[in-house]
């Protein structure tokens, strides 16, 4: 397993290098950040000064080398717009996004697994059909529309929940989180449900399919014949088997929820990383874009690694050393 992890990490470093190069060239191709950042009434002299101040007067390859040199020391550059280290800005926004992502995942798993298993266990019942119809809606309705509708109903019409923004935070174990205050929880509920809807539908479908497949397997018949209760068969043996694909998919989905919850974050004015990246792209704030994508790639690599390890725990037949990445 150690060999496997080391090999994986070495490949990752190479991916990160390619990634940073692509982003550098990509942003350069989009346009000159100074044209967007500078005051409209600035003259050519002021423009030249700004270009030099942001280090954009060097040729692109030289800018990239400077970046690599600093990155080797853990410095991913200073944001053009905030004048703060890009890495720090992203890390500052991380708790907000993480708490939203985890709330959404918890909702998706806690609701999706039982609902999906029920729908797979009693596929022809009316409830199961309602669940499946609901999951189609969860898949197909656009997130921003559902988000706005939820705001209209629960915040504007009923007035039960706050419409936008993050609530009060409290410090738990050195991390500022809004999940530790009632106000924070009230604020996180709507965006978390909004973000969860798609994953919820996914979990429902995966667990239903797994349930239906496994219930026909010989081991279930055997277990029943052996005299095990249905409850034990489903919640111990079948559950373990259907969890394997769910863990894989959810692992990847967790990554995408953290990195790309842009839509939900903008609809709910949630001060997370997703909003930071989309604003930064609009402002061509290259240091943030580069740092953000590097962090995202790193995160996906780590999640994939964890998923692979979990896999081998859930299914002892999988041997990591043989699975060549």
């Amino acid at each position, binding site marked *: 397993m150690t060999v496997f992890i080391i090999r994986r990490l070495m490949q990752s470093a190479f991916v990160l290098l390619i990634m940073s190069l692509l982003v550098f060239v990509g942003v350069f191709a*989009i*346009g*000159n*950040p*100074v*044209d*967007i*950042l*500078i005051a*409209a*009434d*600035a*003259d*050519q002299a*002021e*423009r030249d*000064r700004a270009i030099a*101040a942001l280090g954009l007067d060097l040729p692109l390859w030289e800018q990239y080398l400077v970046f690599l040199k600093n990155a080797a020391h853990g410095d991913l550059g200073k944001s*053009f*717009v905030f*004048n*703060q280290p890009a890495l720090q800005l992203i890390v*500052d*926004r991380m708790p*907000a996004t993480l708490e939203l992502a985890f709330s959404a995942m918890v909702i998706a798993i806690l*609701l999706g697994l*039982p*609902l999906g298993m029920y729908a797979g266990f009693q596929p022809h019942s009316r409830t199961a059909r309602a669940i499946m119809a*609901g999951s189609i809606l969860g898949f197909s309705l656009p997130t921003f529309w559902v988000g*706005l509708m939820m*705001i*209209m109903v*629960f*915040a*504007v019409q*009923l*007035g*039960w*929940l*706050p*419409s*936008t*923004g*993050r*609530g009060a935070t409290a410090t738990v174990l050195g991390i500022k989180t809004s999940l530790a205050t*009632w*106000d924070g*929880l*009230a604020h996180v*509920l709507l965006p978390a449900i909004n973000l969860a809807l798609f994953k919820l539908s996914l979990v429902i479908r995966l667990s239903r399919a797994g349930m239906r497949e496994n219930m026909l397997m010989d081991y279930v018949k055997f277990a029943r014949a052996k005299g095990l209760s249905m409850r034990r068969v489903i919640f111990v043996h079948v559950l373990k088997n259907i969890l394997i694909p769910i863990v894989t998919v959810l692992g990847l989905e967790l990554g995408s929820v953290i990195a790309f919850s842009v839509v939900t974050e*903008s*609809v709910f*004015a949630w*001060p997370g990383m997703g*909003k*930071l990246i989309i*604003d930064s792209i*609009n*402002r*061509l704030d290259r240091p943030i874009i580069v740092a953000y994508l590097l962090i995202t790639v790193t995160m996906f690599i780590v999640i994939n690694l964890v998923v692979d390890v979990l896999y081998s725990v859930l299914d002892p037949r999988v041997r990591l050393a043989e699975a060549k990445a």
Partner: protein
Amino acid sequence: MLLKLLRTALVAGAVLCVPFAASAQDLTVGLSANVTSIDPHFHALSPNNNIAGHIFDRLVHQDERQKLTPGLATEWKVLDDTTWEFKLRQGVKFHDGSDFTADDVIASLKRVPWVPNSPSSFALYMRAIKESQIVDPYTIRFTTARPYPLLPVDLANIFIVSRKAEQAPTGDFNSGRATIGTGPYRFVEYLPGDRIVLQRNDNYWGPKPPWPRVTMKLITNDPARVAALLAGDVQIIEAVPTQDISKLKNNANVQLWRIISNRLIYLHVDSFRDQTPLVTDKAGAVLPNNPLKDARVRRALSKAINRPAIVERLMEGEAIPAGDLLPDGFFGASPKLKPEAFDPEGARRLLTEAGYPNGFGLTINGPNDRYVNDEKIVQAIGPMLTRIGIATKVVTEPWATFASKGSAPNYAYSLMLVGWGSGTGETSSPLRSLLSTVRPGFGGSNRGRYSNPKLDAVLDEALATVDDEKREKLLQDAGEIAMNDVAIIPLHYQVNVWATRKGYAYTPRTDENTYAFEVRPAK
């Protein structure tokens, strides 16, 4: 089970919300654009200046119509053509209790060009100052290299910080360590991308603002901002989207506040190059001669545009057709200039006269995320031009790519939609940046590279004329020269709209700023 859980959760949420309803004394504002720094000298960007305007004062302030009013300077006068004397307000205290004197002004002026890594420096607004001299703690003299009547206007852009902050880096302002001003509000907290919290400065020298605590929330998504107002989570929002205006008008809980803006939406025309890249014959080959160099062709384009239709249909009436650089009543706006009437027949005649009876091919470019309804406006103008025989293609893109391609040194477009807000509240700002020949200090945003020596001469004279009355006449002349030559094609002035909950009143501002201290409880 799902429903039950949801219901429980929602009821719990509802119960939770009640204790957190803000007290009636506090004000929460929904802002439409991101604030990226609290440092008032770091980035000359309107959302940042809007926040800085709460915490810091300037020597000269602008009222809601951008007329200059006394700020930290009570009066100013010209001693001779190049020397200005500013008398400072006495008895003003900084938020930390120290006295405001001329030293703080000098420290601020030193800090402005010093701020490291500024993407757009405020030094622009002090380039005329050659020397500053303290006469006594409450009198300061500025010497300019040549007569410069706009000095007070420029100084209305420079925020005065405490002399203790002269060497403070930007981070110290964001954290609050150096955020010491004299303004009506003191800094409490800045959460990037989320909110700015302010506390009333009870020792403010001006009128006492009614709200002890103000939260400025950054809600950049338009529907979300409107929803936050409707839900009562914020009491006032800025930049009300035009498509929601009719709905909000009929809402008894909401009141709208509007004023004409200093922002002109116009088409910039490449009248400079002999061959312009996006003007072609009908087959798509670039024309050997640029027809847009001919003022008759430019006027034909202008006549082909149905401004009242754009204003009524696309802008929901929240705009005013334009024929000048700034609306009537602004300094330098000419009462003689009226919007070009919609006249497709006249436009065709002009085209024929100019030698293009069958028109030509043209691409009009525009941003799709910058100005109110920008993309829709460009899409409407395309067919209007096609109707007079100019086969027009429409291309829109995000400002991030548009701005680079359309500006120096790329100049990739021939006809483009842009906007200009006159921060100075008078016409020298657009004349200087948009219409003057590109030369040092001038024509910085002249994307069409219009060049007219006659205009330059009148403008230069205006900029050297300290006498207000004479200068206004010269600026009007310059505007008339440009407009009669169709140097740009003005479309409309935006209308700035705020919406408040019932029981709140706002004095709308031409400069789009949203100042919490100008929100009042309605009588």
